[in-house]
């Protein structure tokens, strides 16, 4: 059987999610032995090109060129995977979607001919069908490897998107909100990080986006009861996953 052809692509992003692939130091050589690396610009100057069996795409779509490119990659790929918060829900740069940045772009770049920035920075799914999402800012290396382990043997990878709260309880952490009124997105954020922040006495800031069944209104009134004001909740949600529908709806309704 021929090896599946892998493409790794970068859009508007920090590079961190594709770096996670290279950060899988112990597994990297074995992993790369099981695929044919068709395109991975950051790691190799050899380019085999399309078609791709698996395309991993990091970053949000924020220029006209990127729209053309994601449409092309979609056409050339069997399975398109959104890699990380920028690709799944806009990333931090999508915060400009609430400013009027797009409108004064020509004023910002009097002589720029290079960037044709779109009015908004958006997740891949606003432009093309996405077959699978790896969440997080950055993605979890463990989930990345589980994704490959499943996909390479023809299985469908599955991850829980239950709230960080559950895992946090299992870790035996005292609740930061209840104990000290510390703002925490744990009740509405998907797990995947390994409860990094609450285990350090720090409120969750939402790297993995909304959990299954996240109820933002109920969450916000519960936080308010613990003396966390609404502007703080708004700022927390205006992070790397602000374009995720559940978060976006609350932000747009509550300012």
């Amino acid at each position, binding site marked *: 059987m021929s090896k599946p052809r892998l493409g790794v692509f*970068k*859009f*508007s*992003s*920090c*590079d*961190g*999610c594709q*770096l*996670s692939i*290279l*950060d899988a*130091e*112990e597994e*990297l*050589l074995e992993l*790369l032995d099981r695929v044919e*690396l068709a395109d991975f*610009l*950051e*790691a*190799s*100057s*050899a*380019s085999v090109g399309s078609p791709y069996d698996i395309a991993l795409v990091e970053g949000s779509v*924020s*220029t006209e*060129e*990127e729209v053309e490119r994601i449409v092309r990659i979609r056409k050339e790929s069997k399975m398109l995977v959104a890699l990380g918060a920028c690709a799944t829900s806009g990333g*931090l*740069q999508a*915060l*400009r979607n609430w*400013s009027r*940045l797009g409108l*004064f772009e020509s*004023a*910002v*770049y*009097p*002589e*720029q*001919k*290079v*960037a044709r*920035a779109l009015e908004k*920075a958006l997740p891949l799914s606003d432009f093309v069908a996405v077959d699978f999402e790896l969440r997080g*800012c*950055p993605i979890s290396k463990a989930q990345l490897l589980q994704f490959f382990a499943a996909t390479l043997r023809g299985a469908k990878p599955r991850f829980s998107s239950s709230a960080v709260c559950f895992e946090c309880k299992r870790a035996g952490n005292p609740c930061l909100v209840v104990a000290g009124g510390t703002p925490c997105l744990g009740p509405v954020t998907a797990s995947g*990080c390994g409860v*990094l*922040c609450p*285990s*350090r*006495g*720090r409120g969750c*800031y939402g*790297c993995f986006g909304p959990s299954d069944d996240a109820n933002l209104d109920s969450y916000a009134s519960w936080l308010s009861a613990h003396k966390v004001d609404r502007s703080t909740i708004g*700022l927390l949600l205006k992070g*790397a996953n602000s374009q995720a529908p559940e978060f976006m709806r609350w932000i747009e309704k509550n300012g």
Partner: protein
Amino acid sequence: MARRVVVDTGPMARVEGEGSLSIVETDTGRPEVKLNIFEPPRFFEALLNGRRAEEVPDIVSRICGICPVAYQISSLNALEGLFGVEVDEQVRRLRRILYYGEWIESHALHIFMLAAPDFMRVPDAIAMAKRDPALVREALTLKRMGNRLMSVIGGREIHPVSLKIGGIYRAPSKETLASVLPELDRLRSSVQKMVAFVSSLEGPSLERDSTLVCLYDAAHYAIDRGEIVSNQGLRLPPHDFEENFEEYQVDYSNALHSRTKGGGSYMVGPLARFSLNYNQLNPAARALAKGVGLKPPLKDPFKSIVVRALEIVHALEETAREVKEYEKPVRPSAPYKARAGTCYGVSEAPRGILYHSYTINGRGHVERAKIVPPTAQNQARMEDDVRLLVPRIMSSEATEARRLSEMAIRNYDPCISCATHFLRLDLRKA
């Protein structure tokens, strides 16, 4: 006008981010050299407007997945300076170890995965692994050590979560931190081989004079803070950075270029640090430098790869020492009160000086942010290096011309994701 394209790399491989290089011969006799950066801008400086000071370190870390610690530390230096917070000495030690981890990871990535394939005339580290699997496995082990240091202190290697204004959310115990020592010691004893390998790589050379700029810290080979110094006798506190260096826009790049005021291009990064702070390098690194015949000042950018290897040795040695001297801080973070004002912070990212400045208002919110990353500062110098190589490039056949040009850029380990995200939003009234 007659124009002949000598080199046009298209999207360049083995750099972080999206850019290309073009060299065009014109009948003016002066070839046009352009590093085109088409990575889309992400407007971070504008996005910071109105955010709370305490959010800044985590927001700016998202500018770069390769050097998030540098972003966190430069912003903390600025904000803690403004708020008058005294950070505990042991916490400062933890931050330095975290930063050494980032240097080790980033330098190992550059040396083995991005740069060495050029010298060995192969497309990537995978091809290198086929020739010499033991070498690549050891390189990955080294890279993993960098990541491990970041995870132990920061929770994860990319966008660590542990730092805050005033200190650290939770400090690891002495035993937890010491758990890195056995592997660290093994690497320290085998690192000689890595330096020997890197210095055995045969490549081009380019002896040229350049303005070199880095930080100087009386206590250490500068990494987490310092004054700005140059080989032209400059010595400045961080707040004078903008008085001495300026940014300008060119029409073919989404990143601003930098120059010294009234002067030309300059270089930041390993070559500058080695040349100016050599005496503070750990003795083990200096001994190895001597062994491979490197001494300051170093004028050849193609030797940057060797300096990065020596800086890995330095970082491993200093980490081992700092880990042994570590005691869990009694007060991991100091309380502070945000106050209004403008502040400045610098640190030595793996690629060179990372400058931040913020204006904070009376409510503790950001009103203005300015960030000058190392790759933006190096851009003009990269183009100057390529210009000096043009005669050699033009007399080479196409594949070799391209290899030579790309190497001249990769010498700087450009991080284009960093460089691009700073186009400022100067709202001009229409």
